[in-house]
């Protein structure tokens, strides 16, 4: 324990969604700061967190900084000595400034010639002397989705210390002793009730629970094991995984006690991943609600429970919801039934509200809600959602007819396009915004719309995730797969292209209209179009987008989104770049995906690497071919160039045929790879830039043809293995 480092940043409640990332950041920042401070990490960093604390522990760190050699460079030797070999004033001045005797000066050879130099040895300071800097660096380097000012300052010369939430205490121990550190409070806040935060040896337990003494009192600790034990006696479980597992276990048991199981199909992972970061000491209770609410659409019931209350719905063995909910408390109450009763009342009030909204929305058909969209603003330059609906209707019809070539479904796609935003004007969605799209779909279904229409509305916000298995799946879409794809593409295109035309492009972390997400959804749909819809179409971005009013920034944004989606699928970054070269408008994300699925089989072969390594040269040299050079043919003579020409001529049709057909890329890449040795031999034996202009042009033309052929597959020069 004598060299253990223990840090706890005690805060007011940190938002649950920040905690997992923040916990990782604390570990990384501590490691980086310790490295910067030249303190060795002799054991790995462990991190822990609850809503009220960020904790890091290292079993052993160095007792003092590593010593450091510093080489201070002076003037060039030529200027430091005169003709007699004596130091010039410049040379002597350097020695004096560095505080060393003249004989301690060395001559250092550099690329620019010999220079004077002095080697200095710095003895490392003790850990305790450097650890305060480590903490201030760490506090500065943490980033939060939103920072707040809380009248706090650090004495590091940078002043104000914004943070995610106010820091209330600091536990900072090295070898069981407090490392001196404090956060001071800015002058305008100086007040009896506003104090500096001074690092100490105390932590604080659960706000309301303790085994002994007064809840919330300061608890002195000596080292990590002691810390963990004392916190556990004071109802704080610092291991997130322990809270998570306890919650999962208790939910399961409580659901079974109520005769059902957690309705995991509805719950998804999100809430079970969020709840552990909302509590320090989880306990599960259950409650019931009146059976009459089971008549509400399942989506409404579960959204009310999950999104608004963090409650878990319970279903029977057939997946049917029971009038039961589970809740995770941050409390071990004396009488859990009182809390459950209160929660039942809150839930009942919300469900009653939901039923009221549902009934009032149903008084009018969905069509009638579209009119009210004139009062809902989409964007000030792009008009209201009524105007957007009209654009989506038109575009969905067009995509269905012209691109999908399914004119038979165009009316359904157009109807869904016109209605897809209507639910934004309903009371239910104004209240439960998470249900946008879903409610529109439900209302359309209730009013007798065919599946091709209502499901297209229901799912039109999807896909959100970029993974191949993210929803919706083909079986969910049923007979609406094609109309859904048309509406989903139309909606996202209208948003992304429209916003770019209106000058709203995302910058850095600012993307207030979620354009990246929309564009990724669009790309993902194109990438998986055959699996999702049965349409085997290689749609290019240019086919979908009306280019007017869009500049380079839009296309490079789209290109980045395509690359992002493909990289998220696990494809190698270099491979992704190689198949997404050239004009973004000409790119088909599906073709890129198909190429990437076979490309890795070849990239490691000798032949392919040969081709890749030489391809940049091919491109560079081929540039010398004058565009108006006449094709004289038949001028080639050298065996190596004749061999390459023969290979290009025989393999060309294989590659071109594949590109034309859009399938069989394995064969095409194999063909391309076989060109590798011929290209290598060509460059070894043949002088491209021959004196004879006819011969030179013939050689350039051969390379140009080769380049054009390979580029149809990929810009393989992107795949060259990194230099070792």
């Amino acid at each position: 324990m004598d060299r253990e480092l223990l840090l706890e940043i005690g805060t007011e409640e940190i938002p649950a969604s920040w905690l997992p990332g923040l916990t990782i950041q604390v570990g990384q920042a501590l490691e980086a700061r310790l490295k910067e401070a030249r303190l060795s990490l002799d054991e790995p960093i462990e991190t822990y967190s609850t809503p009220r604390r960020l904790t890091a522990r290292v079993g052993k760190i160095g007792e003092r900084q590593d010593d450091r050699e510093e080489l201070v460079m002076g003037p060039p030797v030529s200027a430091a000595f005169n003709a007699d070999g004596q130091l010039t004033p410049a040379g002597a001045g350097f020695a004096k400034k560095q505080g060393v005797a003249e004989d301690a000066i060395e001559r250092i050879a550099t690329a620019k010639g010999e220079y004077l130099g002095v080697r200095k040895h710095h003895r490392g300071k003790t850990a305790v002397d450097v650890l305060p800097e480590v903490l201030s660096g760490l506090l500065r380097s943490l980033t939060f989705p939103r920072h707040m000012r809380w009248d706090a300052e650090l004495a590091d010369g940078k002043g104000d210390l914004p943070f995610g939430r106010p820091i209330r205490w600091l536990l900072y121990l090295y070898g069981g002793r407090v490392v001196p550190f404090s956060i001071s409070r800015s002058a305008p806040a100086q007040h009896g009730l506003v104090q500096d935060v001074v690092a100490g040896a105390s932590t604080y337990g659960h706000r309301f629970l303790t085994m002994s003494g007064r809840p919330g009192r300061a608890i002195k600790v000596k080292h990590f094991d002691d810390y963990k034990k004392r916190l556990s006696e004071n109802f704080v479980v610092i291991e997130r995984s322990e809270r998570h597992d306890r919650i999962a276990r208790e939910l399961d048991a409580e659901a079974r006690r109520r005769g059902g199981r957690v309705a995991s199909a509805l719950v998804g992972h999100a809430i079970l991943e969020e709840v552990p970061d909302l509590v320090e000491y989880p306990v599960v209770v259950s409650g019931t609600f009146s059976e009459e609410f089971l008549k509400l659409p399942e989506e409404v019931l579960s959204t009310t429970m999950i999104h608004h209350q963090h409650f878990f719905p319970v279903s029977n063995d057939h997946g049917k919801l029971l009038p039961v909910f589970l809740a995770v408390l941050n409390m071990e109450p004396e009488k859990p039934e009182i809390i459950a009763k209160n929660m039942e009342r809150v839930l009942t009030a919300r469900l009653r509200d939901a039923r009221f909204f549902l009934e009032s929305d149903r008084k009018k058909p969905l069509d009638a809600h579209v009119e009210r969209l004139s009062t809902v603003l989409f964007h000030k330059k792009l008009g209201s959602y009524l105007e957007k609906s009209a654009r989506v209707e038109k575009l969905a019809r067009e995509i269905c007819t012209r691109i999908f070539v399914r004119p038979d479904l165009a009316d359904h796609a157009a109807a869904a396009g016109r209605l897809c935003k209507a639910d934004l004007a309903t009371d239910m969605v104004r209240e439960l915004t998470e249900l946008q799209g879903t409610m529109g779909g439900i209302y359309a279904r209730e009013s007798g719309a065919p599946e091709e229409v209502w499901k297209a509305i229901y799912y039109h916000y999807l896909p959100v995730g970029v993974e191949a298995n993210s929803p919706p799946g083909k079986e969910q879409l049923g007979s609406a797969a094609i109309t859904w794809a048309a509406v989903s593409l139309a909606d996202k295109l209208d948003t992304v292209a429209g916003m770019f035309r209106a000058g709203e492009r995302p910058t850095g972390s600012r993307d207030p209209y979620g354009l990246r997400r929309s564009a990724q959804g669009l790309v993902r749909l194109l990438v998986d179009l055959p699996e999702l819809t049965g349409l085997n179409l290689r749609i290019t971005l240019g086919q979908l987008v009306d280019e007017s009013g869009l500049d380079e920034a839009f296309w490079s944004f789209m290109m980045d989104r395509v690359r992002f989606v493909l990289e998220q699928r696990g494809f190698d970054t270099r491979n992704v770049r190689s198949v997404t070269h050239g004009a973004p408008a000409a790119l088909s994300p599906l073709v890129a995906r198909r190429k990437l699925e076979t490309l890795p089989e070849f990239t490691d072969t000798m032949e392919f690497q040969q081709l890749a390594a030489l391809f940049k040269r091919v491109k560079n040299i081929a540039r010398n071919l004058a565009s108006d050079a006449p094709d004289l043919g038949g001028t080639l003579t050298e065996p190596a160039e004749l061999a390459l020409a023969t290979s290009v001529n025989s393999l060309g049709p294989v590659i071109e045929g594949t590109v034309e057909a859009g399938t069989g890329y394995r064969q095409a890449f194999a063909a391309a790879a076989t060109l590798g040795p011929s290209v290598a031999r060509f460059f070894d034996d043949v002088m491209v830039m021959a004196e004879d202009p006819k011969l030179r042009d013939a050689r350039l033309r051969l390379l140009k043809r080769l380049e054009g052929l390979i580029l149809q597959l990929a810009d393989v020069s992107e795949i060259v293995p990194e230099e070792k």
Partner: protein
Amino acid sequence: MTFQDLIFQLTSFWASRGCLIQQGLDLEVGAGTSHPETLLRVLGPTPWNVAYVQPSRRPDDGRFGQNPNRLFKHHQLQVILKPSPDEIQRIYLESLEAVGINPRQHDIRFEEDNWESPTLGAWGIGWQVMLDGMEISQFTYFQQVGGIDLSPVSAEITYGLERIAMFLQKVDNVFDLHWGGGRSYGDVRMREEVEQSKYAFNRDTGIGRERYSAFHRSQFDETFKFGQELLAGGLLLPALEYCLKCSHLFNLLDSSGSVGVTERTAYILRVRQLAIAICKQYAAQVTPEASSPKAEP
């Protein structure tokens, strides 16, 4: 505990913690934040602790007295602590104990919920406080008002009084609350809710849509213009009142469906410009240099 007892208990708790007890603003506002005791007092360096009940009107939430949880007008207890004391969360929890909510018998959470009012150029960071799954308070560290960074930072606590009273009285319908003196909340306020909702949505009023809209538009224009004149004359508090009246008139135009989308944005922008101009001028007058000689008692 009756509704009025709850108000007494909470205000006397905060009085005992050094807050001035003020009265709610005698104008139509949607929240206690609009009160100059919050909006202006949080600007500048002078410490200020104050609490008051603010009757808050939200035309859009009117439900004709038919909904057990929603009201055209509800009551907030607003507390401003400037600067925010370190122990603010603990003090807040003590205030709950003062009205009989024992934190050891309930599940009390501070869940992320930030606050923003584009109309006032104001935002803050904070939580909603959940009591057994019900939101009972809003807790905000003010970061900016009128587009101005605040230093020091103030803490704002807003208690939803009806909600807390319903919890304490175990009542499911707000109109069943005991107000005091043997009277229910419905006895005191039902008629007002019904009539004000009708007015807010212009339903069953016999007043034509055109007339309703034209009247409120001209009121808005006149009020706005006069607010600007007051501001030009350096009368910041009266100017703020006219600004708040505009905000309420706009809310009525909105709830009655009298404004289209482009107009809506334009109305909001006008209120915002006036509010920000007022805050900026006020802030310039209460800088540390300007206020220190006078502000010290």
